[in-house]
């Protein structure tokens, strides 16, 4: 391991694959994503293996994650949101476990890459826009015309609304990427001070890292939650138009 705190974000090709001119190599990022899907699936499918009426520890964790996201979708989108529950659930668990597994030493945090977070944000953005157009047709664009505003302000307000709508995927992706990158970089920076400061002085950055680790668990959960909640809110806008 190098002392460069950004070294941990390096993408390393493990198996080079070329798919008709597209670089589809298996990288450490791909391994982390596959591991995340595997861990989530094992957690949920094995956890529900016994299907007990009175759940055990694993089963109640699986049920808790289900009800947590189901409540989130119901509260923010309403009953029309049921259809999109599996998508929001997958998104939440994918990001949450990506963040959490990234906290393991020597593992890779794929959510700290803008390519990943922006692609996820674009999936959400294009998805909710298509859902809105499919549901409301051209009427969907009334989303950009605030109600209860005198018409002569429209030339100012409508561009603002359009820009704020278009900036959704940017803020969504940068929030997650920046939080994960900053947290992991900070941990590495403090970790880099531990050995150079020696046995006496090294305890201070070590203590900071212990605190940061706990804080990073909170951030890992919070960012996954924020991403999922904002997805629900965007979905709600598309379905109910204000």
């Amino acid at each position, binding site marked *: 391991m190098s002392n460069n705190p950004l070294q941990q974000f390096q993408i390393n090709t493990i198996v080079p694959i070329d798919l008709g001119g597209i670089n589809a190599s298996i990288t450490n*990022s791909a391994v982390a994503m596959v591991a995340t899907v595997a861990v989530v699936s094992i957690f949920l499918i094995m956890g529900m293996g016994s299907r007990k009426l009175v759940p055990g520890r694993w089963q109640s964790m699986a049920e808790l994650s289900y009800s947590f996201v189901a409540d989130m979708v119901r509260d923010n989108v309403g009953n029309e949101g049921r259809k999109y529950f599996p998508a929001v659930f997958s998104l939440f668990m994918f990001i949450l476990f990506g963040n959490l597994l990234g906290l393991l030493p020597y593992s890779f945090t794929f959510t700290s890459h803008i390519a990943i977070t922006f692609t996820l944000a674009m999936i959400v953005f294009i998805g909710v826009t298509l859902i809105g157009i499919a549901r409301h047709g051209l009427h969907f664009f009334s989303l950009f015309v605030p109600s209860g505003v005198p018409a002569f302000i429209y030339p100012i307000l409508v561009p603002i609304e359009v820009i704020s709508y278009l900036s959704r995927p940017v803020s969504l992706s940068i929030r997650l990427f920046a939080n994960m990158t900053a947290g992991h970089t900070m941990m590495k920076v403090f970790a880099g001070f531990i050995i150079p400061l020696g046995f006496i002085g090294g305890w201070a950055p070590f203590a900071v890292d212990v605190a940061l680790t706990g804080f990073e668990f909170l951030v890992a959960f919070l960012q996954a939650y924020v991403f999922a909640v904002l997805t629900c809110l965007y979905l709600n806008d598309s379905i109910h138009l204000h």
Partner: protein
Amino acid sequence: MPQLEIATFAPQIVWLFITFLAMYFLMAKVALPRIAQVLDERQTRIDDNLEKAAALKAEAEAAAAAYESSLAQARSKAQEEVKAVLDAANAEQAKRQDELSAKLNKELDAAEARIAQAKDKALANIKEVAGDVAKATVDKLSGVSVDDAAVQAAVAKAMEQN
């Protein structure tokens, strides 16, 4: 910054699509239906049990009401019986008292009649004795022998004056 190396974007995005689609199908087709089924089963079970509990509670309440009403019935019946017995006893007592007082009155009347008779008899005797005493007194004091009839008449006259 490794995040800004454009060359690494393609493999990341390709694998994101592969893994996220796999995730979506695993969740939507396998994991979530299982959890939903278990949660539904539990909910129906809970609802069933709640219904059963409500039915049992209603039954228990009905039984309690029946018990209460039979208790009240028994109580009022017992009160009626006690009242009937009490009334009968009172009537019997009144009847006996009436009989007794009638008997006593009769005896009292008879006794009064006897007393009056005895009094009359005694008064009659007193006249005779008074006559005899008067005759004997006259005889002793004056040595005159008085006629019985005259003495009797005098005594009767004196007694009437008293």
